């Protein structure tokens, strides 16, 4: 979804600072950082966890529409917290 947000100066400054500390907009865009923060605060405990194909030696955690697509940069950022 594309939208416009009006952010207080201090929030905008924090986002710019966080983006810079993670390697800049290419790695951590403002959009990525806002999505990250919203998921952290509002996702809560899920009613049901992800569907999982659990077979010995081959497991796949299935993605549904409530679950994000992730890149290697997202994995690195999550582990860097």
């Amino acid at each position, binding site marked *: 979804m594309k939208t416009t947000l009006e952010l207080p100066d201090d929030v905008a400054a924090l986002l710019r600072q966080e983006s810079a500390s993670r390697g800049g907009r290419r790695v951590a865009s403002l959009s990525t950082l806002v999505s990250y923060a919203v998921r952290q605060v509002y*996702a809560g405990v899920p009613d049901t966890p992800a569907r999982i194909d*659990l077979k010995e030696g081959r497991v796949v955690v299935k993605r549904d529409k*409530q679950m994000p697509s992730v890149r290697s940069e997202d*994995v690195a950022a999550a582990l*860097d917290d």
Partner: protein
Amino acid sequence: MPYALDNDVFFAALYEGHVAHDAARSWLDANKPNGWAIAMETYLASLRLLMNPTILGRGILNGKLARRVVETELAGAHRGEILIGCERPRADLFDRVTGHRQVMDFWLIQTAQAHGYTLVTRDKALHRTWPEHSILLP
């Protein structure tokens, strides 16, 4: 040659929503018979990722289920080993670290190498630094 998967490749194989899932899953399925492993740090990283709402959104797992996911992947006909590094960070590797984000990657290189494994990664910079100790997945 047995392979050790780094955090990103192992998680990509597990989670369908990772952009590299198909490549990592196919590679792991095809190469398990050669012998494979993850470091203990990668095991723990996987638990963290599977329980993190910024990664799995509304689908996050609890600790019991996350551990079961990793243990079930490690089981089966071609069992995965857990590598535990017991030595201190080696000078020949760690003196080449230039940023804090490299520390864990270099540790995985050291741990894999100490056990006779080659690290599998999608990190081009890591592979460029240690081409003899890693292979690069697309």
